[in-house]
């Protein structure tokens, strides 16, 4: 790059710089006004006591942070986020890999299967929430109907209204939504898998499980890490589907940090406190993204070298 640039005459370089600045200024203005500025304001909001109305809110130092770390509901919500992250990462990875492997050598109908399995990922969250709350409906819902039909009626419950099942019911919905996306990523990675290696392994009379574990997985590890990053980082800021299906209820049972921050800021008018919790979400998700990104880069560099 540098070599190319130095060969250009000064006039050209100046013309490039001028056009470059003209091309980026509109973007920078937008991002500064609607992203940079409110992001900095966030830090300010977290050290004042703002209720959304008062003109000159008092400076309270770290009081919001102290309140946050001693608020048992924050810890409870964070616990739910961790459940969400662990199950909501592992299950779609597993299902996505199974789908991809099932589809790998399928020719006929492959297009239909892909579309069907991936479609939930592009559905709007509200539509997903509505359809699934019907499935979970205590009276008419398919889930309870099936349970009653197969003689497991004692398991039937109001899945979203029962505090001990609400979070998991929403989580199942989220897993259903994400698996097809993971499948799509794996399918594109599987295209690069060395088929000769697979055939050699097949000739050595290895089982399917052995082939997947020893041949396929090592070749798609960077993709594995990438998908983990996406689902894991998203797990801290999960909001839409929980808010739509349970609003964090019943009685805070399915609250995650996102819904708790939202409720505080926009329903209880604890603007500053809500902002502080939102900053906690940020502080948790950024390091995870950076670390996993590093691992992924290292792996893909090693992969290229091999």
């Amino acid at each position: 790059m540098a070599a190319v640039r130095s060969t250009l005459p000064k006039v050209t370089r100046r013309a490039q710089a001028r056009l470059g600045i003209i091309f980026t200024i509109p973007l920078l203005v937008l991002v500064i006004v609607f992203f940079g500025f409110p992001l900095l304001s966030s830090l300010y909001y977290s050290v004042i006591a703002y209720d959304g109305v008062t003109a000159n809110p008092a400076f309270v130092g770290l009081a919001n942070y102290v309140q946050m770390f001693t608020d048992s509901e924050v810890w409870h919500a964070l616990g739910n986020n961790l459940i969400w992250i662990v199950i909501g990462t592992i299950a779609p990875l597993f299902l996505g890999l199974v789908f991809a492997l099932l589809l790998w050598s399928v020719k006929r109908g492959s297009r239909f299967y892909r579309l069907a399995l991936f479609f939930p990922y592009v559905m709007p969250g509200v539509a997903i929430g509505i359809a699934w709350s019907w499935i979970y409906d205590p009276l008419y819902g398919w889930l309870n109907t099936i349970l009653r039909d197969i003689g497991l009626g004692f398991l039937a419950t109001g899945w979203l209204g029962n505090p001990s099942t609400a979070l998991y019911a929403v989580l199942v919905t989220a897993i259903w939504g994400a698996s097809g996306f993971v499948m799509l990523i794996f399918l594109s990675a599987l295209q690069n898998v060395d088929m000769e290696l697979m055939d050699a392994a097949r000739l050595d009379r290895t089982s399917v499980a052995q082939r997947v574990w020893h041949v396929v997985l090592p070749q798609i590890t960077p993709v594995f890490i990438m998908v983990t990053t996406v689902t894991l980082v998203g797990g801290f800021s999960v909001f839409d589907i929980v808010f739509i299906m349970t609003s964090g209820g019943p009685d805070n049972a399915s609250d995650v940090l996102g819904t708790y921050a939202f409720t505080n800021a926009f329903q209880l008018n604890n603007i500053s406190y809500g902002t502080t919790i939102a900053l906690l979400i940020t502080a948790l998700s950024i390091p995870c993204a950076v670390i996993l990104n590093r691992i992924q880069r290292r792996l893909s560099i090693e992969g290229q070298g091999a």
Partner: protein
Amino acid sequence: MTAMTSRAPSMTSARPSGYRKTSRRERGNRISRHTALIILSLLWLAPMILIISTAFKTREDVQVNPFGLFTSFSFQNLVNAWTEGHFNDYLLNSVLLSIPSTALVLILSTFAGYAFARLPFFGRSVAFYFVILGLLVPFFAYMIPLYFQMRGMGLLDTLPGVDLVLATTSVPFGTFFMRAFFSDLPGELEQSARIDGCSEWQIFWRVMLPLVRPGISALGVFTFLQTWNNFLVPILFLPGGSFRPLTTGLFQFISGRQIDIGPLAAATLITLIPVVAVFLIMQRQVAEGFISGAIKG
């Protein structure tokens, strides 16, 4: 960045098979694969089927048997949702929110992506990392102060204001995406165009831009779906309800005291139809957009 070029899986089979003789065992294997895939596909489409079935039920049938599949047929629910439910207005608002913001994202990120890839200027990498920071920072980090900032600017509860916010949430990815496309183009193209007497603008407009059209269309489809489906931005920044899009319109519907399931299903269907259409017509671009969407950061 190299991962950027990973192609979207084409919707046809990825590996050539058939060079091996098909044994009975493989045939059995194939049948069980298809059985598993058909069951899974039906399971994954079930909520969609449920929505369609309930949307076309008659009023009486919904009351006694809301989720029984295709037991009656009427357009009553659709008519209801469209007129009494105001989903005709919501549809218009959704269009007015997603089309302008998508257009803005495409314009800004194509220009800036080109500059970040091929037009060196002082402070360029700082500017780029600042924009890319938006990929790393969740919307939560700044949405609450943004609410009060919008109120102060008089942009709260206005369509242009929310269009700008929607564009801001999508533009870091768009810039990153377009920059990768422009970086992949060979430098010789630029040099020969310059020798032919093209100005820097002409190099961009006549030579480079036509070559990244596939990228622009993938980004367009991706951004459109993201903004169409967006829930948090309109629910926060359009609190008045006069410019409610489909997503928050549906949410309003289910937060009501008495939920009328039939029209609700019809309204959900109205929300989904454009998504299904875009998804089916532009499946290659959708796959490409979402796969690179995952590689961001």
